Structure formats: C-alpha cells, structure tokens
C-alpha cells in the first residue's frame, strides 16, 4: 500500500473512524450538488426525517439541464423548470447556499468552485458527478458519487469509503507546440486503458504537470475517471497558491500563511511509496483525437484509424463495435473526416484559458459552410471575463454561436443535441454511444484548438499547420 503520498495524508486527516463493514467513514470538506443527481437524495432525507448538519459545507448550482440560449424563467422546457424548482426548494428548506442562473455565480459545478476559491489543497470533495476528479488539480481528493451517497453526505457530511491504491503517473519534458493538456490526458488513457485506473487514485507528477497552469491541470484531472480512476490529483505548489490567493473563499491575512504551511505539508513526501509508477515523455505526445466509442480509443491526429489486426485481441470486439457505430473505416487517416457540429465547452475545456486559446485560432477565420459551431462558457464568470476581452466577438465573427453557461452538448440534457448520425468535434470528455443527445450521434474528442481547426476546415485537421 502507498505511504506518505498526498492521498494517504488527506485520507488520514479526514478519517472519522472505521465502520462495521470495515470501510472508512470519511469527512467530506466540500460537497457540491446540482439539479440532476440531488432531488432523489433530498426525497430520501425527508423519508427518513434526517437533517443537514453542515449546510455551509455544501454549494448548489444548476448546470446539466439549463438552456444555453433563452434562460428566461420559467424555462420553456417544463421538465427543466421542474428540476430547477426542486433544487431551489431543497436549498431553501435546508439552508444550502445556491448559485442560481443569473446570480453571476452560476456555472458548471467543476468550474465555479475553483473560480470562487472554494476548492483548496488537502480537502476532500464529493459531488454527484463523476468529473468531480477535476478538483484534484489543487491537491484535493475529489471524487464522484451516486445519489444515495449524496444523501449520506447531506445527512452526515461523511461517506463510507474504501481506500484506493495510488499510481504515480509521471510526465516529463516540454509539450510540443499545438499539444495541450487535453492531449496529455487522452494519451494517458489511450496507453493505460479505460479500466487501467480501477482501484487507483492517479497522482500526476513530473515537470510537464509542474509547468501547467491550474486550468490545464484541471483538464487533466477532469478525465481521470475516463481512465477508470476514481480521482486524480497534482501536488499543490506555488502555481496553485497563486491561483487561489485573493479569490472570494480563499483564506486571508494570517490564515493565508497558515494555509500555505499546511498545504506544503500535505504534499507527497519525496520518499513516498506508490502502488505503481508509470512514466511518459511529453515530446512523445501528439495532438490526440478519439475515433471510437470509448475515451481510450484515441490516436494522434497524423495516424490512421487502427485496423483490428493492429489491436490486442482483448480490444477487438469493442473496436468492431466502434467501426460500425462511428461509420469510420479502419486503416483510413482520421484527418479529413468530415464533421457536422463543433462544440467548445464542458467541465473539461470550458474555462477562460480554453476560450482564449481557441479564439487565437478562430481570429480572422471563418467556420466552413454547413458546420454548426458553438461556444459555451463554463460559468457566468467565464462568460463575463471572455466578453470583457472581446473573445465573444472573435467567435461570432468567425461564425461560432456564443452561448450562456452550462454543460450543454457534453451530455445534451438541454436542447443542444446532435441530430441523427451527425458527427461532432467536441472539447468534452466522453464519446460514448448516444452521449451528445442523439442515439446514433457520433463524437470525436479533441482539444479546443483542434475543434476550431475542425470547424474552419469542416473536417478533422491538424492545428499544428497554423503554428509557425
């Protein structure tokens, strides 16, 4: 078992005790809730007559179901209206802070908690959403939970958990131009597989991650779950502290100094022991894109779609299913594949730096004829800042639609959906069958810069051709 890692230290610090099942009762420092996975949890609380002892340690917002075009209340979608009302009523009844649409603080739950300074190193964070792993970028242990567990956290501020093993994933060196954090995580999942992380927390370490901004680190940690890991984290450092300092919920004054001391202590020790270690070189990572129906089915943009013979026997059945569903031919280059829809947004790539980077490539160019391209900021704050910088104009002049904050077509619980077997270039995190709102819709995952390249060309293209 691992020893002396950040994971071990945070686990120990939050351990309330052992349960009769042998599991650990773990204190949850920050609980994030949204409209989709919480209503049944509140119903269970009422059924059992339970209260919420730490309402101030929970934050609610709406992200999955909110429309990104017309947000006037009541929503024209009656089911969406019913869900948002349920959350409003539940938060009111139990005294839980709620960042509603129009508050200036609403957005994707994994975007707003960091931007308000709520996400901090050394915390345990849980949310009824598998991409809670995002918050690990700050050196928090953050994981997704189901609705019964949302009930457990509401009722006790704790969870029954089994300790995970820790795998250190080291990436060293300088990423080549046109290669982004998204490519790094798609590459890791391609190499370790979609179930490679089952039973593990992933510790991302090495000079490549050390050089990344907090927003890039969030992109990496966000997709830990796509590799089967329950959580992923990066040890906190000066980059982390610089990001947090001055934000609304950040410690201030004397407490700031105490915080930094504590955060430095929570880092993995230099001689920490890991259950597993893997090492990659940054220079070996190409702009990566998925061609199939799991996030592990990725290739470099220069590569061809793999043939069955080139794959290990164990990967062939799912590859056959992918060729058929994606209507793509093995052996054919992925570049040049025609796309219909281009989506920039989601908790993976809907932050300000993603929009800035995408806008660089959209500037002065035009979206190809017949392509629907749209940008959905991750939060109201991201939208406000992007507009202050004029990014909205860059996008709209290039032919992208500019929307309001939400999860949007990452999982298409709102009106943004693929139609029929449309194929999308998407900056989101999942290319599962039917994920983007049509039961036959197809998704190619890639970085926001690559989504812009696809939008301008109308086909999958290599963004490096625009880089000198």
């Amino acid at each position: 078992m691992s020893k002396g890692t950040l994971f071990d230290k945070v686990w120990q610090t939050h351990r309330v005790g052992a349960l009769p099942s042998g599991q650990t009762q773990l204190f949850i420092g920050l609980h994030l809730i949204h409209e989709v996975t919480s209503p049944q949890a509140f119903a269970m609380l009422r059924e059992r007559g339970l209260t919420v002892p730490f309402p101030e340690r929970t934050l609610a917002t709406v992200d999955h179901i909110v429309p990104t075009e017309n947000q006037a209340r009541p929503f024209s979608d009656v089911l969406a209206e019913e869900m948002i009302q349920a959350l409003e009523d539940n938060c009111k009844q139990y005294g839980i802070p709620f960042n509603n649409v129009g508050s200036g603080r609403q957005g994707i739950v994994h975007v707003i908690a960091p931007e308000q300074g709520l996400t901090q190193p050394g915390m345990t964070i849980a949310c009824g959403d598998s991409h809670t792993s995002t918050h690990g970028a700050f050196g928090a242990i953050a994981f997704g939970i189901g609705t019964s567990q949302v009930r457990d956290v509401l009722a006790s501020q704790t969870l029954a958990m089994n300790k995970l093993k820790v795998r250190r994933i080291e990436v060293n060196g300088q990423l080549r131009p046109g290669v982004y954090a998204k490519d790094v995580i798609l590459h890791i999942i391609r190499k370790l597989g979609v179930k490679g992380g089952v039973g593990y927390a992933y510790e991302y370490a090495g000079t490549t991650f050390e050089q990344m901004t907090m927003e890039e680190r969030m992109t990496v940690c966000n997709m830990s779950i796509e590799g089967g890991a329950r959580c992923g984290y990066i040890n906190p450092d000066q980059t982390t502290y610089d990001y947090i300092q001055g934000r609304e919920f950040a410690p201030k004054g004397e407490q700031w100094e105490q915080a930094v001391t504590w955060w430095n202590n929570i880092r993995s020790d230099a001689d920490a022991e890991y259950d597993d270690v893997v090492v990659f070189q940054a220079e070996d990572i190409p702009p990566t894109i998925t061609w199939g129906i799991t996030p592990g089915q990725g290739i470099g943009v220069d590569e061809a779609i793999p043939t069955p013979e080139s794959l290990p026997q164990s990967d062939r059945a799912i590859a056959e299913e992918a060729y058929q569903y994606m209507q793509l031919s093995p052996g054919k280059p992925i570049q040049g594949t025609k796309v219909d829809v281009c989506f920039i947004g989601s908790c993976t790539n809907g932050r300000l730096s993603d929009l800035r980077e995408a806008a660089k490539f959209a500037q002065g160019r035009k979206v190809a004829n017949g392509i629907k391209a749209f940008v959905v900021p991750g939060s109201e704050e991201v939208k406000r800042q992007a507009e202050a910088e004029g990014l909205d104009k860059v996008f709209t002049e290039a032919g992208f639609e500019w929307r309001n904050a939400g999860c949007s077509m990452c999982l298409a619980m709102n009106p943004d959906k693929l139609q029929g077997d449309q194929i999308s270039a998407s900056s989101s995190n999942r290319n599962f069958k039917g994920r983007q709102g049509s039961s036959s819709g197809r998704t190619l995952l890639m970085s926001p810069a690559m989504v812009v390249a696809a939008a301008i060309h109308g086909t999958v293209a290599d963004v490096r051709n625009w880089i000198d």
Partner: protein
Amino acid sequence: MTQVKQISGRGIPLTGDDIDTDRIIPARFLRCVTFDGLGDHAFEDDRHQRKGDHPFDQEVYHGASLLVVNANFGCGSSREHAPQAINRWGIQALVGESFAEIFFGNCVAMGVPCVTADSEDVKSLQRAIANNPQLTLTLDLGTLQIQGSDGLTLSVSMPEGARQSFMEGLWDSCGQLVTQIDAVRDRASQLPYLSWA
C-alpha cells in the same frame, strides 16, 4: 435492515466490455425528480438499435434476476439512475468480469450485490444461460459461489467489506454514518480549513 445473503432466479447475459452508464440509461431519462419508471428505459437506445435482439427485449429473459456482464461494466457517469434502472427492470444482483467503482458503490448503497469472476467463467456462464434461459441460478454470498439448477458451480469474488455489509444487512450506510455525528464534529474541528474565510 435487510440482509442480502442469497439471490436466486434466472439469469440474463449481456455481452460486451466497457458498457457505460450513458448506454444503461441515456441522459434524456435523467430529466426526472424520482427514480420511478426508469426500469422501462434501461438500455433504451441499445434496444432500439438491436430491433428486439437485445437481451432485455427477449421474452425468454423476462423475469430474470441475475445480470451477467463482462469487463468494466457501468463506467462513465456517476448517475445512480443506471443501477436504479437495471434494478427496477427486475435485476437483483450482477455477475461480471469487473465493475466501474462508482457503479459498484451505487449498487452497494441500493442493496444490489455485484460479484466478479474470471473472464472465462463469466463467458461460460453467459453461454450456459443463452443455451438454457430457464436455468435457475443461486448466488450465495456466504460461500461466494453460484450454483446452477443443472449442476453448474462457479466461484465468485467480492471485496470483504461489501460482502459483510450484505450478509449483516449493513449495506445502507446512512444510518451508521449519522449515528457518529459527535465523532464527525470532532474530526471537523481538527480540520484547519473549516475555520478559514
């Protein structure tokens, strides 16, 4: 609370690795404030695409209680709607090569055991059910074995903590967690960040 020691019933095989929770219950069915009625929509898009050929649509498997799956079942989204849909369709236990962790945890919290077996054993169990859908299977969490009415015997695994939870009826952790509220408050008082900002 209810002890879960033995589950008996007919099986239903569902082949394929990496079957994600978006496939188990597509996102559009998450637009609800209760889990009621989700059973009707389990695997809805897969069923539509297979035009009646999906095991959940085959009459011989109606009324089955043990779902037999392959590797990494339930990966993807944390939505508890997925195991709820399967359970409300009628499934009381799952046997598979491996399960995604959040899915497994959700099943435990619902009182639905998920056990694992070797890849070859799972595949042969799937074949045995396909050849004889009337076969009655008994999953015994005490002996960690599956017995078939035709004499089939199979060893399965489950993490000991989860197994004990089912055997002793402690799988619904909520009750135990709330009784420790003093210890929880004590732990909270020692966390520096709870007093910041």
